[in-house]
């Protein structure tokens, strides 16, 4: 269930648009912020708030890669593997994290702390290789830098 605050935020968002439906991405972002992923229940709740059917909400949710259709760990490590990062050894970043955490891409650690994904270009090509964790970008990655980032997330 969405918090009262989130529902108020959704109300406020509605004032920006001539149609309620335009709020759907904002609403899904709020759901994901509170719950970490977008469950069927959450999609039904968003649907009822916006006068849509659950399938209409599911169609939109699944179109956008940022929305997790399955639960993820507390920290979602998203490593860019597009060209500029790949040229700067983005694959090495992925492999290092795989070894360090003992998981493959798409998996979550047993303690549910970390999920590892690969993503397309995030607009940090000049500071490659990079990854995003939550809202934060981590750029110019090296093995020691990855170590210290993961250390602070414990």
């Amino acid at each position, binding site marked *: 269930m969405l918090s009262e605050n989130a529902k108020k935020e959704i109300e406020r968002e509605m004032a*920006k*648009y*001539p*149609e309620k*439906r*335009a*709020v*759907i*991405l*904002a609403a*899904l*972002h709020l759901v994901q912020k509170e719950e970490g992923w977008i469950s069927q229940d959450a999609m039904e709740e968003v649907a009822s708030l*916006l006068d849509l059917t659950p399938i209409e909400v599911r*169609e*939109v949710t699944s*179109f*956008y*890669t*940022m*929305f997790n259709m399955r639960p993820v760990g507390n920290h979602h490590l998203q490593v860019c*593997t*597009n*060209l*500029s990062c*790949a*040229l*700067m*050894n983005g*694959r*090495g970043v992925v492999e290092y994290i795989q070894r360090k955490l003992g998981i493959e891409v798409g998996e979550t650690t047993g303690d549910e702390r970390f999920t590892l994904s690969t*993503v*397309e*270009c*995030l*607009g*940090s*090509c*000049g*500071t*490659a290789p990079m990854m*995003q964790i939550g*809202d*934060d*970008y981590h750029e110019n990655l090296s093995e020691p830098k990855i170590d210290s980032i993961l250390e602070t997330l414990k």
Partner: protein
Amino acid sequence: MELYLTKNFGKPNAIAMAGYLKHGGYRALRKVLKKMEPKDVVEEVKDSGLRGRGGAGFPTGLKWSFMPQETDGPKYIACNADESEPGTFKDREFLEKEPQMMIEGLIISAYAMGVNTCYIYIRGEYATQTKILQQALAEAYEKKFLGRNILGSGFDCDIYVHRGAGAYICGEETGLMESIEGKKGQPRKKPPFPANFGLWGRPTTVNNVETFAQVPHIINKGASWFRGIGTEKSTGNTIFGVSGHVNKPGAYELPLGYGLKDLIYKDAGGIRNGRELKAVIPGGSSVKVLPADRIDVPLDHDSLTNAGSSLGTGAVIVMDDTTCMVRVGVVLAHFYRHESCGQCTNCREGSAWLHQLMVGIENGQGKIEDLDLLMDVADSLEGSSICALADAAAWPVQGLVTHFRDEFEEHIKTGKCTSPDSFRI
């Protein structure tokens, strides 16, 4: 050479209203509201020769003139801050370092087109930049540069931020509009064009972040000043983003028409580890690659088109002589396959096929005939679908196979990569 876009980037307070005002910010808006008719603003921008900085290079003033002047309902502007073209990271500079510049440009544009409501569509991953932008907008409202009766002029304007959620195709202007409306970001068939039928069926103009950021400077210093920078048909400065195998990757403000060779060797410090250059993608992942012997070219629209590539977003991706071009092909083909919105059969199937063929060659299962097949599939994608993503999937493949055919053949014959030190995928 005069820097005007990035001059104050990184200076104390440039990110806040106080700093922007100290550097002469919002003089252009005052001038426009006091002394210029909307149509004069459109004329000034037309005269400046400004071309859109989002990738297609369409003349901005001309685009604005397509908006109907008198309407009996709302008109909209959408500022495209989706910035998802691989290699591109320039709009981020504006958003992070001096957001008021593009906001001022957006308000002036709204006045010019008689628009009272603007949306900034920002990619969902730019969470930090979204916060900066929200703060910047709040400051602009506080100073009465936004809202009702701006600076006593009688002109009203609201700007709202709309966050995307991860989909390259939402940078395409009609995909963007669908996404603002709360739908899947699937591009619309054109015509009707956005100037007549855009957001919620109303007249709408879409421009890139950097395009708006140019506007206050044109108003302050005049169209002829702007025309004096760059080349005859590509005017003004732009921010080039250099990435890949250079010593100093980063964002460089330079006039259009600046030499690609100088950008790589002088500004960006040359090739890393003293290696040789192999190839450059000069305008973001969607444009055709240039081999090292073709980089003596000015970075403007016409010159790059004549050189068989395109200026695109001015995102320069540099590859040294360790780089395996088949792997470059796999990475790029994967991207377009992943990002095809799926509504045109040829784009959906064709982009998947290109990727499959590239992967086959990379894995040592390629056949010589695959090279002609790659070209045939790419050719069939060009100009045959609802939006330009299909073309964007075709061009990199055509460029790679044309210029590096020997390397592809070698890879197919030996079944493995010819560059032992290449980046891995």
